[in-house]
């Protein structure tokens, strides 16, 4: 069965800066893929290339089996897309927006959408620019899934929403998935939600995926262990991250086995029992720089302190 989405070594530059440096991953039909990354890591760029709004410089991007640059209108009808800003025609009333969607998309289920909007407590006569951010996000979402899409692509759908709205959005998505069973690709900063709902996670960093794994795999293969000993911990294969703590180091390790443990405990060092990092902790380990904090003293000050 062909994959729903396939990125094949996609490169994309802006001026001379490489935003995507060979992005390569696949999303299987019926699964939920969460694309994570820091701000500016290239998530939106990747999604725009996927939808054909941008062309890659090298590589190839396939969506529902077609080259993303050559998407026909009919194929677009199978994809639901909501951008970061939930952009709609601000001057339209809600019911006009429904009519617009109904008119321009095939198989739009007007009753379903109207009922869903009612449940969101959004008045039909209100103009879209008068809606709150959360209401607009919900509206955009509901409208986008008004047909029965095969593929949902959402760029940070919960951006700017409070916890209640986010949960409602999540619930709405779950309802939809339970009903229709489509493929979902979304990017998000709310890793707790991602942990609940994603099948597979990709972390975009430095223009490439540094993680492309199922959540279950991440839970089972990644460990966090405190290392206490003199000097620095020996470099072992599978060390994802090593952070200095007050006494000792915190190691994030992949696929730990007996040899790794032995290597780490050599020379009298101690290794604490393993704990599983949450997705957020893993994300931080992999993508944050090891800085002491933006308000703390600079390294030169610290050195000065140390020598004094």
């Amino acid at each position: 069965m062909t994959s729903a989405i396939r990125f094949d070594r996609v490169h994309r530059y802006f001026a001379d800066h490489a935003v995507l440096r060979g992005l390569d991953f696949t999303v299987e039909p019926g699964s939920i893929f969460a694309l994570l990354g820091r701000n500016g890591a290239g998530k939106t760029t990747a999604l725009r290339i996927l939808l054909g709004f941008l062309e890659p410089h090298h590589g190839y991007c396939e969506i529902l089996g077609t080259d993303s640059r050559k998407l026909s209108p009919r194929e677009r009808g199978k994809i639901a897309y909501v951008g970061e800003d939930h952009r709609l025609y601000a001057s339209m009333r809600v019911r006009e927006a429904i009519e617009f969607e109904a008119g321009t998309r095939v198989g739009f289920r007007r009753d379903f959408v109207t009922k869903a909007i009612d449940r969101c407590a959004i008045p039909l006569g209100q103009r879209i620019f008068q809606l709150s951010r959360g209401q607009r996000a919900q509206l955009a979402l509901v409208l986008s899934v008004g047909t029965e899409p095969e593929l949902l692509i959402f760029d940070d759908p919960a951006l700017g929403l409070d916890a209640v709205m986010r949960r409602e959005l999540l619930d709405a998505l779950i309802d939809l998935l339970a009903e229709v069973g489509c493929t979902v690709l979304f990017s998000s900063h709310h890793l707790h939600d991602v942990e609940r709902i994603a099948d597979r996670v990709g972390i975009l960093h430095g223009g490439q995926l540094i993680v492309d794994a199922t959540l279950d795999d991440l839970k089972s293969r990644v460990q966090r262990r405190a290392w206490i000993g003199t000097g620095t911990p020996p470099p072992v294969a599978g060390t994802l991250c090593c952070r200095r703590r007050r006494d000792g180091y915190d190691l994030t390790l992949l696929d730990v086995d007996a040899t790794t443990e032995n290597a780490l405990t050599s020379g009298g060092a101690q290794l604490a029992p393993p704990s599983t990092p949450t997705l957020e902790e893993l994300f931080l380990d992999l993508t944050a720089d090891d800085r002491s904090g933006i308000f703390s003293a600079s390294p030169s000050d610290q050195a000065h302190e140390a020598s004094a």
Partner: protein
Amino acid sequence: MNPTHALLSKDNLWTLALTAIGAGALLIAYSMRGFDSMWMFPPRHTDELFATSWIAGLVLGIFAGVRDEVTGTSEYLFHRPLSQARIHAARIVNCAIVLFAWFLVPPIAHWVIEFLFGDLASFGMPSFVLDHWTINAVMVSACAVGLFASTIPTRSILVRVLAAGTGILVMLSSSLLLSGDAVTATGPWLLVHAAITTVFLAGSFANVGKLADDDRPMARLSRVAAGSIVALTVSGSSVLGIALLQEEHEFERRQAHPRIVQTPAGTIHLCDQVRVPETFEREWLEVNEDHVRTGTKLPHASRVGRVWPGHKYGDFGLNTPRFRLDRRRRADNYQAAVDTDTGLVHVAWSAARWSIPDRFEVVGRSQENERFSDDARILHTPDAPDLWIVDSGALWRLRSHGAPRFFQPVALPDGDRLREHQTVHLGDRDILHPLGFSDSSTVALIGDKGVYVIGDELRAAPKAIRSELVQPPSLLLEAVDPDPITPTIAVVDADGEERFRHTFELQRFEETAHGVLTLFWSLLRPPAVQAVTGSFGDRGLATGFSSQPFLDPLVADRRRAWLTFCCIAVGLLCAFGTHRMLCRRDVDANARRFWIAWSIVLGPAGLLSAALFERRRAHADRPVLEIAPPLIRSA
């Protein structure tokens, strides 16, 4: 709701808004000139009505094209199971709706005003709406230009502005093309604008659906369409600029030397402009033995211009009134013009000057309302209530009130025939109205046997007027070859024999400098146009830079073949420069060939346009990077 309806109704708000604003602007512009102008005296290109309609159309087109981009909804619209062409077609339909509304509003407003405040003018008849199309043709083509320019898939505002600027050039050129005998020539005007509209609409379809991306080359079709248009615009504007400069140089050159002039009395004099030492001003002195330039090179003559023959609009055979170019006659109580096709006179009578006309009629001569000949001329008669026309030596008159409503012949004393008429300026003396304030000019009719003036009635002209009449000169000063740098003049006598002929050379340093600069600017003109202009001889194309900016008088009529070849050489040089520049920017071969072709045809304009369009950033070869596998990967 079907897709078309949905696409149209999403833009309801701006459609309505623009309709209202544009209609308002048009109504204001019309009311400034008088609504009757809609029917009878269509606008010229300097008119505010023309400008209003053109701007309105352009704004409409631009707005329709950038609307979704500005509100950020283009992706929302794009991501839909509808083809881009369809979405664009809906935009065009919306524009058409607005244009149609603008077409309807002024006539309806006129009819309403007439209905409420006056008689329904005969000119209000639907057939005369055809004239109204001259303005609307302008709006439609401007809209098409705006739509094309605003949809070019580029992030460069400059490119889009240049493309929109084509519209100005098109308007100017079409006006130039259509200047000549008839004021309206509605038929050709409509055809030209229909062609412009078609070309630009087609171009706009080539634009939609292409991505605007700074980092990738433009789609081939868009480059061909937009690139060509921009190149032509750059070239056209540069030619206009060059023509202006050359005109300046020519003017300066002429100021720097003596002249041969023909006075109203008919005598020919040699005059020199001399600097007066005390004041450093310049003064004209007649050259005599004390102050004559010696040598074989004689001073220059003043330039005598010639009018380009122009088109024959009768060729197009479309049935609209065409009025003679020689100014609409306007007196205190009427405006009148002769329709060149029907030979009938259109008159609008008003109670007083500047008031709205209350009577319109179309009249001919005699009871049968026969047509006037092509030589008929309306006489301007200040303070005289009636309308007088001279035609083939006979005089006709139409009374302002009362029967009969056609021109009646006026008998001249002794069966005289009129030879010509002149406008005589009287200065402070006004024989006809010693007590009143009136125009200090009047019309004198010169017959074989006497001179007459017209007022309330036909009278013999008083001596004061007769003495002001200009005699036909016995010698005529002609410009045999009006070359801008080295013209040739001749003096011809009444029998047509040439008494004197001379070709002028550049003599003094100032003249030479200006002449050389004029030549230099010609090198920057489009080689293709120069080549074409230079191949036609004896056509009288060279009339001067300002009247014919695109045809270079320096090479026209087969003058200066060397200059034509130099221009072509400059074109080839530019093509080479384009090639080098584009190679440095990593532009692909197809695009390179396209721009080299334009550089050969247009010279520097092609090079400039290529530089503008093909940025390094879009074409640069980006490296393929090493891909490290993810740190954590599931199967």
